[in-house]
């Protein structure tokens, strides 16, 4: 591994004898101001394969692919497509070179129909009529060949994300993409949808197209790719055949040190009931009922995980429990006291790590030390006679930054200047260190690096072992499975099942996440 880090060409995959590599990058270099996003990247992707590119957030994967797609231009370096040197100065050049990209955030116009979205940029004439008719025929053929069924006249806004993704793939294929790049494609999918996506990708490969899969999820690399390249801190550190590597090796290559992928934990010792929820109904900001009468409890010394695809009511449930979203019907009691009795203030003994740290967890223009007491600023000890004890707060914050490994360890830096993982650790430090009896945690590792994930998971287990009740909401199935002692699966505002943690079978959770219960199946 040390050798491959020193020599970026080591382990480069040899192309198949009969075809030059679909993509060959040499010496690609890109800086954004002081940030060296891509360092002399060498990469050869054999034609007709599925190639994974894995790395932590900020490792430079997306930058590299955006250079390939003409969204950015590299400062230096050469790109060859099918052996031919090409200059990709714009997205148009990339499309002309046969490259298509499915972005992490879909590039779709929501009020448009599927057909209009596919046509955008490839209209085939000044008026739309002729192009539309031609596109219908071509798309029908593509849908048939690759199992990409989509209603062409449906509006994007009305389609589930899995289908929206198919539209993105169709868009690329319609433009004649022979090389398809997918950036973190499974973030919004159920495991079944992800499996379906992988089948489509294999189909594309078998038809001779080349697929590049960018991800930070080891599971996907192992499940879907033929070869894998690992990036770390802007550099390409290793290339492997997927069949000849392991998750552990890849994780170590990504982070640069050994990483524990499975969290070690003793069996839970649940105590008395801390959180009790009965027939809870919650509406979202638009007045739509998003939580449809759920009942459950969380006991001291256990982690209850709520699994589900994003947007099935988990967010509204979490916000209602935290007292920041009104409850339509039903009761919530915390330590035997009804939630309603706390009025507008935060219930005592409740810690809340919100799903969206920048929107709800931090004030991005406030310093780290100010953020460290946010929501607790009225506590005795933080102020004397109405004046904040700033020196004491800074001291406290510095101590937390040290024990939670928040970097850089600068209490005066604005929250927005920290990386996602460090922001999250700051929120976690604040909520955990105020010693809550009940901890509500939403998406604790969203946009957080593997190294920090390990740390955050250990902390949550430690909270549990200290006898706290923890409610964990996450769309990361692996996270739920490795942390939760009990798993509740949420679909369309209701629980479709409860499973014991640990040994819960992924397939079964996946089916429940899609709303398919045993009775229905």
């Amino acid at each position, binding site marked *: 591994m040390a050798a491959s880090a020193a020599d970026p060409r080591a382990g480069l995959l040899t192309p198949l004898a009969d075809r030059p590599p679909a993509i060959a990058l040499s010496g690609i270099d890109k800086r*954004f101001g002081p940030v060296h996003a891509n360092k002399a990247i060498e990469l050869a992707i054999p034609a007709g394969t599925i190639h994974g590119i894995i790395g932590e957030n900020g490792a430079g994967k997306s930058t590299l692919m955006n250079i390939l*797609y003409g*969204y*950015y231009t590299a400062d230096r370096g050469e790109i060859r497509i099918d052996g031919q040197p090409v200059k990709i100065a*714009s*997205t*148009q050049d*990339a*499309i002309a070179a046969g490259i298509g*990209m499915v*972005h992490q*955030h879909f*590039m*779709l*116009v*929501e*009020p*448009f129909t599927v057909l*209009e*979205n596919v*046509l*955008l*940029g*490839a*209209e085939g*004439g*000044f*008026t*739309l*009529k002729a*192009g539309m008719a031609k596109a219908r025929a071509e798309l029908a053929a593509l849908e048939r060949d690759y199992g990409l069924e989509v209603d062409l006249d449906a509006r994007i806004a009305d389609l589930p994300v899995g289908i929206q993704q198919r539209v993105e793939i169709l*868009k690329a294929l319609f433009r004649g993409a022979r090389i398809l790049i997918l950036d973190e494609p499974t973030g919004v999918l159920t495991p079944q949808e992800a499996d379906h996506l992988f089948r489509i990708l294999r189909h594309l490969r078998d038809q001779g197209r080349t697929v590049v899969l960018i991800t930070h999820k080891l599971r996907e690399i192992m499940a879907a790719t033929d070869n894998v390249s690992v990036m770390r801190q802007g550099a390409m550190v290793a290339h492997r055949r997927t069949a000849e590597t392991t998750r552990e090796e890849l994780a170590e290559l990504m982070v640069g040190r050994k990483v524990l992928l499975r969290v070690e934990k003793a069996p839970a010792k649940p105590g008395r009931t801390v959180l009790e929820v009965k027939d809870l109904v919650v509406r979202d900001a638009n007045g739509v009922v998003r939580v449809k009468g759920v009942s459950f409890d969380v006991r001291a010394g256990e982690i209850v995980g709520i699994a589900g695809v994003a947007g099935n009511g988990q967010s509204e449930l979490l916000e209602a429990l935290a007292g920041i979203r009104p409850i339509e019907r039903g009761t919530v009691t915390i330590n035997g006291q009804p939630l309603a009795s706390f009025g507008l203030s935060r219930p005592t003994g409740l810690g809340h790590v919100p799903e969206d740290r920048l929107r709800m967890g931090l004030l991005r223009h406030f310093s780290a030390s100010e953020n460290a007491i946010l929501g607790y600023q009225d506590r005795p000890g933080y102020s004397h006679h109405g004046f904040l004890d700033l020196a004491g707060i800074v001291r406290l914050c510095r101590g937390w930054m040290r024990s939670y490994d928040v970097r850089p360890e600068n209490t005066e830096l604005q929250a927005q200047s920290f990386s996602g993982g460090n922001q999250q650790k700051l929120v976690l430090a604040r909520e955990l260190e105020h010693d809550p009896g009940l901890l509500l945690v939403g998406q604790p590792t969203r946009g957080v690096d593997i190294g920090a994930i390990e740390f955050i998971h250990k902390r949550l287990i430690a909270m549990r072992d200290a006898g706290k009740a923890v409610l964990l909401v996450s769309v990361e199935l692996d996270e739920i499975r490795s942390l939760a002692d009990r798993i509740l699966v949420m679909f369309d505002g209701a629980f479709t099942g409860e499973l014991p943690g640990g040994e819960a079978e992924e397939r079964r959770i996946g089916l429940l996440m899609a709303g398919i219960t045993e009775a229905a199946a």
Partner: protein
Amino acid sequence: MSDLFLLALQLSDSTIRLATPLVLAAMAGLFCERSGVVDIALEGKMLGAAFAAASAAAVTNSALVGLGAGILFAMALAMVHGFACITNRGDQVVSGMALNIVVAGLGPTLADAWFGQAGRTPLLGDSARFTGIDLPLAETLRPIPVLGPIYAEVISGHNILVYVAALAVPAVAWVVYRTRFGLRLRAVGENPSAVDTAGISVTAMRYKALLVTGLLCGIAGSYFSIAHSASFIRDMTAGKGYLALAALIFGKWRPVPAVMACLLFAFADAVQVRLQGVPLPLLGTIPTQAIQALPYLATVLLLAGFVGRAVAPKAIGIPYVKER
């Protein structure tokens, strides 16, 4: 012919005259706003065009040259807005407001300097302005009951720009919904990233949209000074740009509903003119100022009460920056 029928004819006729600049300006605003750029400067562009058209027409004694000058000046103003908001990502409302204020002062000042007539341009003769056109057979068909007078009084007899405005509406609807330019225009106001990744320049699309806005505002402005009236006077657009913008929002950024809103506002304006100084049953004579406020009052009521949630183009007001 009954008095009531005559009144209806007269009101319809003046509604059409008053609606013309509103319709053109609303169509102009549609392009700008659908591309994702707020256009509060419809007013300024129209006023600028009114001044440029009147000046050029006064000097050359040609209505067509006047119209050309009006269009060019409005397009130039649109490009200033584009340079501030698209190229330099400035605040779109601030830029628009600045244009309005600059033009409001510039017109009368230049008119004073050039023509020495206290902020106005010289009165134009008939050859320097667009005068009414009698459509074929207007007099022949007049005797036909009901339809004849409608054709002769309401449809016929307007200046050419009124008919341009009427034709502009289906043309705009066709461009927006049936052409490549329209598809890209609608897309760039909703999700510019999607347009960018499809290999289309967001900047170029928005500049093109603003050029169309300038063109239509130029015609609308010229209508004021070289068709409806015969000279430029201070503040002669009298807030019609804002009214057009309100109509656009009222019509949810769609051509036909926006035109309906324009007609409604113009009708309120026509009624207002008729009511000035006329004693009303029960109320007596209402002060002119109160009656003049009628169309604006209608705007406020409609926008506040009846529009429901107007869903603006999603990317409106946000300068486009490629994400990292």
